[in-house]
């Protein structure tokens, strides 16, 4: 079958993104020290990207799995919560 990019896949999903991110890096300085930056690759939708010397959070495509929260537990540098009620991903199949 045709291979889709991750971006193409996310277009298939239903999202209602909030104005503000529900995910917040507590201290960007800490991320600079972080060796592995696991959040940049374990996230299934590539929410966290290392750009211009800091972590940028593309929360709009977040699937709310909680993986980043577990990945960042060594640094405890992520303020993790679910999107506000009614926002975020809306699965049609599940």
């Amino acid at each position, binding site marked *: *079958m045709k291979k889709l990019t*991750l971006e193409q896949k996310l277009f*298939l999903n239903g999202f209602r993104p909030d104005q503000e991110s529900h995910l917040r890096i507590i201290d960007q300085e800490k991320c600079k020290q972080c060796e592995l930056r696991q959040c940049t*690759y*374990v996230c299934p939708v590539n929410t966290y990207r290392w750009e211009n010397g800091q972590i940028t959070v593309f929360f709009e495509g977040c*699937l709310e799995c909680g993986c980043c929260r*577990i990945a960042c537990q060594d640094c405890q540098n992520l303020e993790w919560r679910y999107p506000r*009620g009614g926002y975020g991903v809306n*699965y049609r199949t*599940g």
Partner: protein
Amino acid sequence: MSDQLERFDVIVAGAGPAGMSAAYLLAKEGLNVIVVERGDFPGSKNVMGGVLYRQPTEQIIPGFWREAPLERHVVETQAWVLTEKAAFKAAHRHEAFAQEPYNSFTVLRARFDKWMAQQVRAAGALIVPETVVEEPIMEGDKVVGVRTGRPDGDLYADVVIAADGVNSLLAQKAGLRKKEIPKNEAALAVKEVIALPREVIEDRFQVSGDQGVTIELYAEATWGMVGTGFIYTNKDSLSVGCGVLISELVERGITPNDLLEHMKAHPAVAPLLEGGETREYLAHLIPEGGLYGMPKLSTHGMLVVGDAAMLVNSMHREGSNLAMTSGKFAAQAVLRAKEWNDFSAESLSYYDQLIRDSFIYKDLYKYRNMSRFFETHPEFFSLYPDLLNEACREMLTVDGVSKRAKQRKIFWDALRKRMPWRMALDFYGAWRSIA
């Protein structure tokens, strides 16, 4: 939320299978139940593989399978051991599974859970969607309610049932789960729902009508990491996914989407998906801590059910049944507490006892060391699958060499790759961890 709604018998946090099972049974008994769900509708945030089992579901809603939006009833269960270029497959099909009332079904959770929510509402429970439960409201060590994301959204009840899933903030903030989930006690699963015409699915899986097939895939399916892949047949789509321990992803530096694409491209997998069109891309954390990962299940005014209690038997890819059964037990414990008007930790510990006496605890106990064993024995995800498939290849290659000479070659090849006593230990250990 208006004032008269703020006090309930029971608050259920999360409209998944565990929470809705509890809510349904409690509402049926006339209790004043509110279900708080953060999604637009129950199911819109819910993800599983997904196989739903008939018997445990029928313990909640008898005869559900005659009305509920199910995909296919599973008549054949397959397991594939993949290497880079090969697959060893085992499968079991039984007519008994093709006959009513069936053993299990594939479902799409967004559809099934929506239907189940209707039953829960019809039973008298109130379901409030688009509302996040943020934390328990405590009085000392007693849970007396929950704080929701809505303005003035505090809710109070005799009991809170924490059915808020693997990331359960309630269990954590009420102190039932002491630690963060370690990276090797949770698997990240990603899944695609891939549309294919009904007839194509029926041909490829050799089924007719609403019969379906499940396949679990091992070894190269997860690039040799501890985890599994799966392919489940829906009516006119396939659920295709894989899940691996986060610790494995971290160590190998692999992106979940790449992992899934790797599996989809395998020469034994690709023919099943050919011509399919992805409809949705999903992700979900699966609690893999098993017995050792289980939090405290109850406290004063609160019970923890389903994924929030880490109730998953990964050996048998069972989750929804543990969730629903735990929901049922929670309802039973609450009903008894209500009768005695005693919602203390001691009273509610009846729930712990029900879990402990059931298959849930027994099975988690049985497989308590499995995950750890396989984590420390990566050869079961690469070396042994390879030996198996290459042995098959050798025996099936007709090239003028006698079968006995081929057996000898297979034997010595294996010995060159791992010492016999290590092999013996490996398989004894594997046996111990699952037997």
